[in-house]
């Protein structure tokens, strides 16, 4: 037996002897099904109230939020990017090409780009896989058909996320249910711009991740 497999065998044996499990114990899966889950797993709010709650919670974190009608998304994006002085913006795979009509902004595709190249991009534009209203959380799943690689949503200093009304759920259990199909993929949950309160408990927005986060909710 190698040293590595001996360590594994010893730890597992120690656990078994510590647990003194009887052979009659039902399988783990069966017992797991019976665990108490009396917490809320469904929503109680109307879709309109959910949108309002999401917007409120996001603003609470210091994110910029705008509500836009479906036919105004492209104009809204152009407007936001102009206000934020964004001249080069990386576009995630899930972004609808119809949203990209800003003349002032150059759109960048992740071909994939090197980290140095990503450092030279102003911001990133993505959609999301789900958004959780109660916690103001944007759920990104990282694959070619969704929000793309992780690095492009991390290195640029600015992130604009477009949320469609149908992607909004009320609470965390509903959100995790929506993410379940993507559970083997990298997932990033984003709740406001990066922040720290490590110095005298003063909340400072923006440390290493994008320091500015804007969200456009399509209603």
């Amino acid at each position: 037996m190698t040293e590595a497999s001996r360590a594994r065998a010893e730890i597992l044996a120690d656990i078994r002897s510590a647990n003194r499990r009887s052979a009659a114990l039902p399988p783990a899966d069966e017992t797991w099904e019976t665990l108490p889950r009396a917490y809320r797993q469904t929503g109680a709010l109307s879709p309109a109230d959910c949108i309002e709650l999401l917007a409120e919670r996001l603003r609470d974190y210091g994110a910029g939020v705008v509500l836009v009608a479906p036919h105004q998304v492209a104009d809204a994006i152009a407007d936001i990017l102009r206000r934020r002085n964004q001249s080069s913006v990386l576009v995630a795979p899930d972004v609808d090409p119809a949203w990209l009509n800003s003349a002032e902004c150059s759109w960048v595709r992740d071909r994939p780009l090197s980290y140095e190249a990503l450092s030279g991009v102003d911001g990133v534009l993505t959609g999301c896989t789900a958004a959780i209203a109660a916690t103001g959380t944007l759920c990104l799943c990282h694959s070619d058909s969704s929000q793309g690689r992780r690095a492009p949503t991390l290195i640029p200093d600015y992130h604009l996320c477009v949320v469609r009304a149908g992607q909004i759920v009320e609470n965390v259990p509903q959100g995790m249910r929506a993410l379940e199909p993507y559970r083997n993929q990298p997932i990033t949950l984003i709740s406001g711009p990066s922040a720290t309160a490590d110095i005298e408990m003063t909340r400072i927005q923006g440390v290493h991740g994008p320091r500015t986060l804007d969200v456009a909710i399509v209603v």
Partner: protein
Amino acid sequence: MSTVPYREFVDFPTSALLLLQDNQLRGNVRHATDVIQSKRDRVVREMPDWQALRDSGYAIRAHTLDYLDTYLEQFADRCTAAGGHVHWARDAAEANRIVVGLARNATGRVLKIKSMTSEEIGLNDALLAAGIEPIETDLAELIVQLGHDRPSHIVVPALHKSRQQVRELFARTMNLPELGDRPEDLTEAARLYLRHRFLNTPVAVSGANFLIAETGGVCIVESEGNGRMCLTLPRTLISLAGIDKVLPRFRDLEVMLQLLPRSATGERMNPYNSLWTGVHPGDGPQEFHVVLLDNRRTEVLRDQQARETLHCIRCGACQNACPVYRQTGGHAYGSVYAGPIGAILTPQLASMKRGQSLPFASSLCGACYEVCPVKINIPEVLIHLRGRVVSAKPAGGLTLEALAMRAMLWVFLGEARLKMAQRLGRIAQRPFIRASGWIEWLPGMLGGWTQTRDLQPLPRQSFREWFERRPPSGGPE
């Protein structure tokens, strides 16, 4: 547990007495714990199902421990199938050897995400001894590292430092003489200091908040984005996790991700949660290792009355709520894990050979149990461990305290003896009762009690005496 960083520690009362004289430290600790606690209370109150979530949190953790072998094997198999490498470490030395071995190919330095477990095994010292420089990337950990200091809180490890102190430290170590002392200035300095290190360091070492058996995935919860940087940019990622960190299924995160952020920082959700499973071609590290650490956790598991210590998800809520911690701060505990959870975890992880004074560093008020998101009954475990500490004392060397306890037992076992003792006590206490009606000073060993509190004298009549002498009545009214 490593003995290197905390070898000067004697016992809790000694270090507490010393630290209580540091007014600035006490002010900082008080401020930080007040802020987090009031934020926590606010966001917990808005959850109508908080108690149901705690019940589920407890049940999930207890269930996981019951089937720990099953879930760890499942995690290891699925993580390996997804392209990860799983290593098993029986103790701190073995874990350090594994991580150092993996990091040796790095260019002399590794990035680190704040991890209590790496503190527990003294990983930074092991890396330095091998000529590898660990770069702490969490702002507070960076402050601790640059200042050759020690973390004092699970969630905000540098809460004992004021911003003027941080400014001086950064100005000196980052060579920024013009640096301002607003928190914004200091955060910006850390961002610039770390940016090129993030982009150019090929290896990162992280802890793990949760391992998911069902998927072989790992979850890391953070605020600053330094975690995402370390998990995404380097070529190689090494995650060190206690064997207690496993969760059965992806779905269990819906409970933990509600309990942890609200309890830890008083936020509805922390800014960033990262989840990944093994290696993802073209995205993130292309070499991924998980080191599963025992380091006496299986011994904790063996103690039926203390094993729920392993439920802990390291939120730090018990520290903020603890009236003892709030006075002394974390350093008084002389261990990586401070506060109520440290008082029960530290001695157990040291096989009761270190930190024996810690289970006594509590008034047993129960505030820690009240706030614990996974319902660890810390007061009960504290009492159980006090028992273990006392019974572990060598039987031959009978202390005065042990003798007194035995005499008490003998007195309490006989009614006549108890009556006699009460009568004697009433006579003996007379010279000590002040005009106020209280005993304010006692001689010798008993003085330990009256040093900080007054004592009510024995009453003139005991309940039994009153019962025997009461006038006969005509039966129940």
